Structures are given as structure tokens and as C-alpha cells.
């Protein structure tokens, strides 16, 4: 019986550890790296589109300032987290460097735009958000195109 108890404890501890830490798997081939790049673009795109919806709610007076600030902060955190995870991957060869540079430029543009929105929301200038969010649509389109091309 004690073996069963130990096994349960081990499984639970392993599962919990796995859940509470961000594990980045190794990338061995250019194809793997390309797929990870596409999924990173998807994750950043998700943050960008969430921000667009939040700004829409704020612009129509359907959300209050504290919520808008937190929601934009979360969107930025999701996008920058995904970008940072991809940036930590070692490209498998020189042929992947161009892909890395291309995505890095795109994600930086996205996270910068999201950071600007978050700063504005935290200052309580909700009426400026819509104008500042205008580049998001173009960034979202390019992220979607990148994902489709490499996914």
C-alpha cells in the first residue's frame, strides 16, 4: 500500500511541477522551429485581437478603467510571454535565422503597441485608446499571414 501512496504522491508532484513551470522543449529540425514560430505568431495574434476587443469595449463606454488596464496588461503579458519563449529557442541552423528575425520584428511591433495601450489605460486616458489601437489591425493581419505561411 505504501508503494501506491508513494506513486500517487510522485505523479501528483510531477504533474504539479509540470503545470507550474514553463518547459521549453528542444527544437531539432528547421520544420519544428517553423511550426513553433507559427504557434508563437498565433499566441501573439491572440493577444493583439484580445486588445482590439478590449479597446472596442472601452471606446463604446462598456468597460471601466481598472478592468481595461488589467485586460490590456494580460493581453500584453500573453503576447510578450509567447514571444520571449520563442526567443529563448536556439535556431537549429543558419537557415532558421531569417525566420527568427522576421518573427522577432513582428512580435516586437505587436508587444510595443500593446505596451503603449496598457500605459495609456493605466493613465486613465481611455478616450485615446481607439486612436492608439489603429495599428493593431495591420499587425494582426501580418501575424495571421505569417502563421498561415509557416503553420
Amino acid at each position, binding site marked *: 500500500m505504501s508503494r501506491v501512496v508513494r506513486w500517487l504522491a510522485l505523479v501528483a508532484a510531477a504533474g504539479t511541477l509540470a503545470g507550474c513551470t514553463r518547459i521549453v522543449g528542444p527544437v531539432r529540425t528547421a520544420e519544428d522551429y517553423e511550426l513553433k514560430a507559427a504557434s508563437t505568431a498565433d499566441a501573439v495574434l491572440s493577444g493583439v485581437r484580445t486588445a482590439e476587443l478590449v479597446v472596442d469595449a472601452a471606446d463604446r463606454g462598456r468597460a471601466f478603467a*481598472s478592468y481595461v488596464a488589467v485586460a490590456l496588461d494580460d493581453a500584453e503579458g500573453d503576447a510578450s510571454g509567447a514571444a520571449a519563449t520563442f526567443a529563448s529557442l536556439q535556431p537549429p541552423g543558419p537557415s532558421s535565422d531569417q525566420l527568427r528575425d522576421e518573427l522577432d520584428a513582428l512580435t516586437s511591433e505587436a508587444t510595443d503597441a500593446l505596451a503603449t495601450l496598457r500605459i495609456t489605460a493605466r493613465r486613465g486616458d481611455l478616450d485615446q485608446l481607439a486612436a492608439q489601437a489603429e495599428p493593431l489591425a495591420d499587425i494582426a493581419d501580418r501575424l495571421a499571414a505569417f502563421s498561415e505561411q509557416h503553420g
Partner: protein
Amino acid sequence: MNKVLGITLGILTAMGGFVDIGDIVANSETGARFGLGLAWAVVVGVIGICVFAEMAGRVAAVSGRPVFDLVRERLGAKVGLVNLLASFFITFLTLTAEIGGIALALELASDVNYLLWIPVAGLAVWLVIWRVKFESMEQIFGLMGLVLVVMAVALWRLGPDWSDLAHQAAHPAVPHGEGHATYAFWAIALFGAAMTPYEVFFFSSGAVEEGWSRRDLMLNKANVFIGFPLGGVLSLTLMGLTAVVFQPAAVSVGSLSQSALPVSLAVGKLGLALVIIGFFAATFGAALETGLSCGYTISQYFGWPWGKRVRPREAARFHLLVLVALGVAVGVGLTAVDPIKVTEYSIVLSAAALPLTYLPILLVANDRDYMGESANRWLSNLLGSVFLVVLVVVAAVTIPLMIVTKAGS
């Protein structure tokens, strides 16, 4: 009015079971990724929890003792210990997540970082457990959680294509870009969330706290068959909201702010305020349930006096356990571990431990020495046996699926 208030135990238990922090995010995420293609998992989970919660409540009403108390007596100390260790670990993980969930809800309302709210949340939960009567506690938080009905209003105001939603629910399919293993993982997560073990510990212990007897068997049924399906409907509503708003935009959901966004878009500031109050009430209620359950399970296993119905001096070890569990949960929460990840894993791990909780309930509910004429009838046994087979299969595949799918990512 008394009859309505009589079912608040079931409502509070179901709020914790179906719309706690993990469920809120899991339902939102599955809605955004799979539409209503996993609604069936919630429905199956609701039926399963109804079957076993009805048994657990009936055992408590007839014997005057909660399930965990009888498990050890009926199945022995060793089996009881395995059950205790698995259940306590999962319940404690969930408590940690709920404290974080309360803090996240407060952050949405205040824009003050959730880490600063965690000690406040822990203290507030302890004060309520210490000072507030059991009945008052369940009525306040059970009924406050009902403001989440605003989610149904939001879904209606969004004006979705109802026939399309019905089609998605009735013809489940794996969407393009998702794997079958990932689909199965999320089905298990939703099923595990619906059947979280602490629900039956809290529900049966709550029945004893309220002094249920054989005369309350109908009250037990009303609590189970109104409270739990209500929780299930709220789960499905949340899934529907994110399916309508996020799935077409290919947005993945991983935060509480995203779960509230569809209500904000559809109903406005009032709706947003109500849904945040509802999230607060549901996570606070779940923290009360899990905090108390940490004390219930260990005290009942060792045969110590327990519960809020006895004076704190007589149940000192029970109250100390609750206090220590809350203190450690606050400490873990302050390490900045992601509360949403913690609760997602706790519901998946709970799926792996489900047979350990529900087999003993089925056995005790069939034992005529305890139950007399109120022992299980054929329908309860049939449903209980079918679900037990499902639970064993779920338990066997949960961990492999978690590894293969990288936890559904």
C-alpha cells in the same frame, strides 16, 4: 422563502464545482477553441456529480455522518489513507488556486496587482470560516454567485446563431487545427472539474453541519437536482460566450479578464461589474469549500471533532488545520505561481484520483448496515456502476494524455 434558502448548500457547492477559477478559465478556453463541441463533457459531468452527490447527501442524512468518516470505518485505515492523501492534495491545490482567483477578481475591480490581494483574500476567507454561521455563509455566497446569470443575458444580447450553437453541441467534432488527443484532454479536464472530489466532501459534511436527517432526503434531492444542473448551465453559458466572441477571432483564453470580456461587450459596465462580483463570489465560495474540506477530510479520517457546529475549543484541531491550510495556500500563492495553471492541473489530477473518491461512496451507499431501507436502489446502482467504469478509464488515461498533449496546449 425557507425552501429557496434550503437549497443554497447545493447552489454553493455547485458554484464551487462548476464556476470556480479553474472552471471559469477551462470553460472559456474550451469554448474559444472547440466552440460547444465539448458541451457533452459538462453534461456527462453534471449527471455524474448528481448521481454521487445524491448518494453522499443521503448517506449523511441517514447516518448523521459524512462520507469520509464512513470510508475509513467501512474500508479500513489503509484504503482511507490513500483516499485521504489523494483528496487532500488536490483539495489543497484547489484552495491555493481559489485564493489566487479571489485576488484576480479583486484585481479586475481595482487594478491593484493580485499578489497584494492574496493575503487579504486568505484573511477574509479565514474570518468568514471562523466567524460566520454555516447557513449564513452558504446563503450569502451561494446567492451572490447567482449574479453570474448575467452571462446568460450577455449571450442572449450577443444574438448568436442559436441553431449553429445547438448543432455544435449536438454534433461534437474536433475542429481543424486541433488534435484528437487534445480534444480528449480537455474533455477530461471538464469532466474532472465537474466531479471534483471536494464537492462531495463539502456537500456531505455540510449536510451534517446543517443537521440533516431522514426527513431531509427530499431536501437532499432538491439541492442536488437544482444546484448542480444550475452550475452546469452557467458553465455551458460561459462556454457559449467565448465560442461566440473568441472562436471566430482565433483568440485563446488564459486569463480571468478575457472570461469577463464577452459580458462587457454585450451588457456594458453594469454587466461587467456583475460578472466580476459573480467571479468573486464563486471563487470565494470555492475557497470556503476547499478550506473547510481540508479540515473536514483530515479530522474525519482521524476521528477528531470537526465542523462549525461544534465550539472552536472542542474542534481545535479542525480549526488549526483550516488555518494552516489557508496560511500555506497564501504562502504558495505569494510565490507568484500562476493560480490558473494550478487549478487547471488540480482538476486534471483530480480526474486521475476520481475512483478513489467515488468507489467508497458507492459501497457505503449500498451498505444496509448504515443505510437500512435508504440504501441504493437499482437505478442509482446502475448509474453509479456505469460512471465508475468511466471514472476508471478517465483515471487511467489522464496522466498519459497530459504528457502527450503538453497539458492541452
